[in-house]
């Protein structure tokens, strides 16, 4: 079996791969310590920082945390609450009291129906994955127009770039309003042609995100749009 080594260079590890001795170091995410050895539990890039050895996963499911900004779709409506599909292992609950509107009991459907998209924030998550959302906050609202595109959760940072730099460039290049949810959903709004361009760019990220080609694609788009 090939054995990875803990070192400065990034290397791809697969589940079950022995990465090295665990003495004096701690196991971070994607890593378990067994019999004084670190074993990778995910496919991803090996990472060591501050004596913590972890795997930066190439593909991972969205695990909700409180405070996350998410784009959800209404999956179920009750008299006084909504259930949202937030791309996570569980549906999230938005109670009437945390909605931005004054809602009468039984009138929840008048504000958000099944399939509607909304920008919300996760208020709290407990250890059994029960999630409560809030729509009380600046910018949190129902998304009436535009399009929602999904990307793998681990590529969100690539799309945003340092301090949202890449995202700002895409916004400028495509002339679209773009909101990136922490749950891997991206809301795009602009004129039809601009939205199409932005969607294509995000699809490129979807397909080639694990490679170093995304920055090049953004630059190519900027050059192309700059000429028009």
């Amino acid at each position: 079996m090939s054995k990875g080594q803990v070192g400065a260079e990034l290397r791809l590890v697969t589940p079950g791969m022995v990465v090295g001795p665990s003495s004096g170091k701690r196991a971070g995410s994607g890593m378990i310590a067994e019999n004084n050895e670190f074993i990778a539990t995910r496919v991803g890039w090996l990472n060591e920082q501050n004596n913590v050895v972890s795997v930066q996963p190439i593909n991972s499911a969205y695990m909700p945390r409180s405070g996350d900004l998410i784009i959800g779709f209404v999956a179920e409506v009750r008299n006084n609450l909504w259930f949202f599909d937030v791309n996570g292992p569980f549906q999230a609950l938005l109670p009437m009291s945390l909605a931005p509107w004054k809602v009468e009991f039984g009138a929840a459907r008048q504000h958000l129906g099944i399939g509607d998209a909304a920008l919300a924030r996760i208020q709290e998550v407990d250890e059994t994955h029960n999630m409560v959302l809030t729509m009380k906050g600046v910018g949190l609202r129902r998304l009436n127009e535009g399009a929602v595109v999904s990307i793998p959760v681990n590529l969100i940072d690539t799309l945003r770039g340092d301090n949202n730099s890449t995202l700002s460039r895409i916004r400028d290049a495509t002339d679209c309003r773009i909101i990136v949810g922490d749950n891997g959903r991206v809301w795009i709004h602009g004129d039809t042609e601009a939205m199409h361009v932005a969607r294509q760019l995000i699809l490129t990220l979807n397909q080639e995100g694990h490679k170093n080609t995304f920055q090049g694609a953004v630059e190519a788009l900027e050059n192309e749009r700059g000429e028009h």
Partner: protein
Amino acid sequence: MGGYGDVKLLRDDGKRLDGRAIDEMRPVTIEAGVLPAADGSAMVTHGLNVAVAAVYGPMEAHPRKIQRQDRAVIDVRYNMAPFSTGDRIRPGFNRRSREISKVTAESLESVVLVERYPRSKIRVEIEILAAEAGTRCAGITAASVALADAGIPMRDMIVGVASGKIEDTVVLDLDKAEDNYGQADLPVGILPNTGEIAFLQMDGDLSIEEYNLAMEYNHKAAKEIHEIMVDALKRRYEGGEN
């Protein structure tokens, strides 16, 4: 198995009908990420077997009665396509596919870190497109790679391999004739890193010595297949990190 004692399965030169040595495996190829709609997927060809596995989730477990408060449940559906064998197979579940789904789910539960996703469900669909003996092993190998591709945390990957007995000789990786007319079949799910056994079934009879030899063959084949699995995952993501 057995009951057809006069079928000749070993040639005079000691090789098997398809020309393989007794401890030689059929060719195996693996490709990860073959299905764009799934969270993770893999295709395994093992000899003439073709198995495709797709993984979805973790997702909310329905119906709610199957939820476990402390861990995820793994829902496996193994199915053979109607055109996978010479005789058409009636589509849908049957006794055999239920059994294989159950043993596959239980063996995958032993490697997936299910406690990370309480109350949720991980769905694994295994479709056998072509069958030539050893489909449960090809299916479990495909499911392992698909789970890794989906980013589900696992202690190790499981490799499905089988050995058996034909004409009183222990051989590795039975093909269709050997499976149908041989004396025993021993499919095993092995964790290649530790050598642990995640599942083991036996059809027919083996003496202790024969069993030990069959397991030795299985462990050797598991290491070979594991390298192909790792290579498949590496090939999928080649091109550098972000």
